């Protein structure tokens, strides 16, 4: 009888402890800000700003075509529960995100609401088209959205994320600002290192599959001489490839950069011109060596330098 009582007491203590632990864990989860980002690189920057205050989830994995992320219904519950949404903007996500937001039933993260954190605000945008017409391909009317590839512009992105988080959770503003300052300082150190590391890229002529690399090229002094696509989003015609091959030979282009696109055409061009083909993704996060923003840019710069040296 005594033993039974003891067992029963122990059992009660165990259950109460379990409940307390569960409650505590629940509280920790409850306190965390639920952030959904469109791309992994944004997820990492948000983690650096929010640290333990945020629980960040990226919809894309980083290997997807930048404008062809499948519109999966499994994204809907994630968007439904989000406190804030962090995105690239400049119509980068136009083909999949707006339709998901329409069914996600989360007014907090709709366009124009405080939870909608558009990281392109204040970023100096390149290649804003002077003629917005579909005869020019699948254009982004407000400019090229692949600015994350420039680490200097990424500092503005970090600032936007910190501002957006503070707007929604002003009680943590001081923490976000402190983390932003530390991350910006870390980025500055890396930028100085990348500038030295990327010195061999200055003046390097390159071809890209899709206009994704202009910000990186601008930062490291590379010169784009053409794109595999006929126009943004339009697959090349045979005539275009012939012309591109001539240009590569004439301008002595050294690199052809492609990402999620089909490798067949880059390989064909390489076999005709001897140009070095490099596969790099413009979303980050798809492999262990690119799972943080800094590691991704570092890997990208190192890969390009190795390719030209």
């Amino acid at each position, binding site marked *: 009888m005594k033993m039974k009582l003891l067992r029963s007491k122990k059992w009660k203590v165990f259950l109460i402890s379990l409940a307390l632990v569960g409650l505590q864990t629940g509280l920790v989860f409850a306190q965390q800000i639920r952030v959904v980002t469109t791309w992994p690189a944004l997820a990492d920057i948000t983690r650096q700003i929010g640290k333990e205050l945020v629980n960040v989830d990226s919809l894309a994995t980083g290997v997807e075509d930048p404008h062809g992320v499948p*519109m*999966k219904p499994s994204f809907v*519950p994630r968007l439904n529960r989000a406190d804030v949404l962090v995105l690239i903007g400049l119509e980068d996500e136009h083909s999949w995100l707006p339709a998901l937001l329409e*069914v996600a039933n989360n*007014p907090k993260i709709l366009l124009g609401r405080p939870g909608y954190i558009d990281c392109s605000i204040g970023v100096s945008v390149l290649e804003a088209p002077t003629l917005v017409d*579909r005869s020019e391909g699948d254009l982004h009317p407000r400019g090229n959205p692949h600015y994350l590839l420039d680490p200097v512009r990424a500092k503005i992105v970090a600032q936007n994320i910190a501002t957006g988080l503070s707007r929604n959770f002003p009680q943590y503003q001081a923490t976000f600002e402190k983390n932003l300052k530390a991350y910006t300082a870390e980025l500055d150190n890396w930028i100085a290192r990348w500038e030295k590391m990327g010195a061999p890229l200055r003046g390097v002529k390159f071809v890209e599959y899709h206009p994704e690399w202009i910000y990186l090229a601008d930062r490291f002094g590379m010169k784009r001489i053409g794109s595999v696509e006929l126009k943004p989003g339009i697959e090349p015609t045979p005539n275009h490839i012939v012309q591109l091959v001539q240009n590569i030979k004439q301008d002595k282009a050294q690199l052809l950069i492609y990402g999620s696109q089909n490798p067949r055409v880059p390989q064909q061009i390489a076999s005709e011109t001897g140009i070095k083909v490099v596969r790099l993704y413009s979303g980050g996060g798809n492999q262990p060596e690119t799972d943080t923003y800094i590691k991704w840019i570092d890997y990208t710069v190192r890969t390009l330098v190795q390719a030209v040296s």
Partner: protein
Amino acid sequence: MDLCQTRLQTTSAVFVLCLVILFPRVGLSQEDATQALRKQLGEIQNQLKSALDRIDQLEKEKSSSSDRLGQVEKSVQAVQSAPSALNPSMGLVLDANIQKRGTAGGLFDFRSAELGIAASIDPFARMYSFINGTKDGVEVDEAAAITTSLPYNLTAKGGRFLADFGRFPKYHEHELPFVNEPLSIDRMVGGETQADGAELYYLFPTPFFMRATFGAVNKMGEGNDRIDNTVLRSGSQFTYLGRLNTYFDLTDNHSIELGTSLAYTPSVRLAGDVSGGSRMLNGVDLTYRYQPLGSSVYQGLTWGSEFYANSERFPFDIEVPNEDDPSILETRTVGKRQQSYGGYSYVDFKLNKNWSTGFLLDYAPVIDNPRQRTLSYSPYLTWNISEFNRLRFQYSYLSNNFKADKAEKGNQFFVQWTTVIGAHTHGFLTR
């Protein structure tokens, strides 16, 4: 002005430096001269540094001024274009084809020019409309308002819309992966699920996607002419809708989507059918997708199937003996419940970014006489010239077990051209 002064200072400094370098020994001892030179060089270096700093500062100010100017210009442009900026986004879809149907002949078929308009109404709702021009006239295909801020994961829609029944029945025909709507949808659902009424959606707070739809409409189906859309009716004569839709990622690249739908009309009274009765249309849909994340633009496979069951009373004539003279047979119209089952299955392969191919198998009963049915086989090939320009080639073979119209049997050939201008949206329901 500042820039000129700085440049003048720099030039003077460089001139002095040259003089010093060229005439080092004039009037000085060697040691003094060296020290003096060092001093002068130091001063010149300082001057050069401050001059360069000043140049940098001026360049920055200049660039910041142009940025500010750019911002002002943009702001002025925004104000000037504010009235037009509030216009809804618009797009026009042209769907035309050339076809040859059986032994009946061919036709250039202008199927539709569909004008799509959409915008937010206010912070609480948005609205969209599709106005469809066909060879038969112009019709408002859809015009509906949808809430954006209801609590408890609810969304309400009202107006004229394609009701949330099944998968392909709520697609506009040009959005289908093949040229024509499957005949099973046409006969059993009544074509596109156009309906005047209201729908309420509920998104379950589950970790996976699950959504329920409830609706009440006058009638469902653009081609359903058994019910008049315009007359007043009792509660039992509306059509009530329900749908449950869920989705699972099997892996990053494979997914499955399931749906079940119901359209129930408690009382349908057709001309000549004295008693009337209910109509129950059920649907089950299953879609499997293979979308390799890293190359979903170039590769993919979709297998989709839908099955329908319809239970409805239809009037038909019987011959009964005359009450006064049983030797005389007279015709009387009575209602009889008919159960019909049909559906389709298709598979679509993405060959590369521009080309895809597939095959559609369709089983379509005649709902008022389910013993009669049409079985059709349709291989097709799609060339997406760009995202907004598409050519499709389709062959269909229609096999009927009854005497059908010449145009509705045998070999059919289609070449369809679909183009889009203006704003385009990829709706979630028609993804």
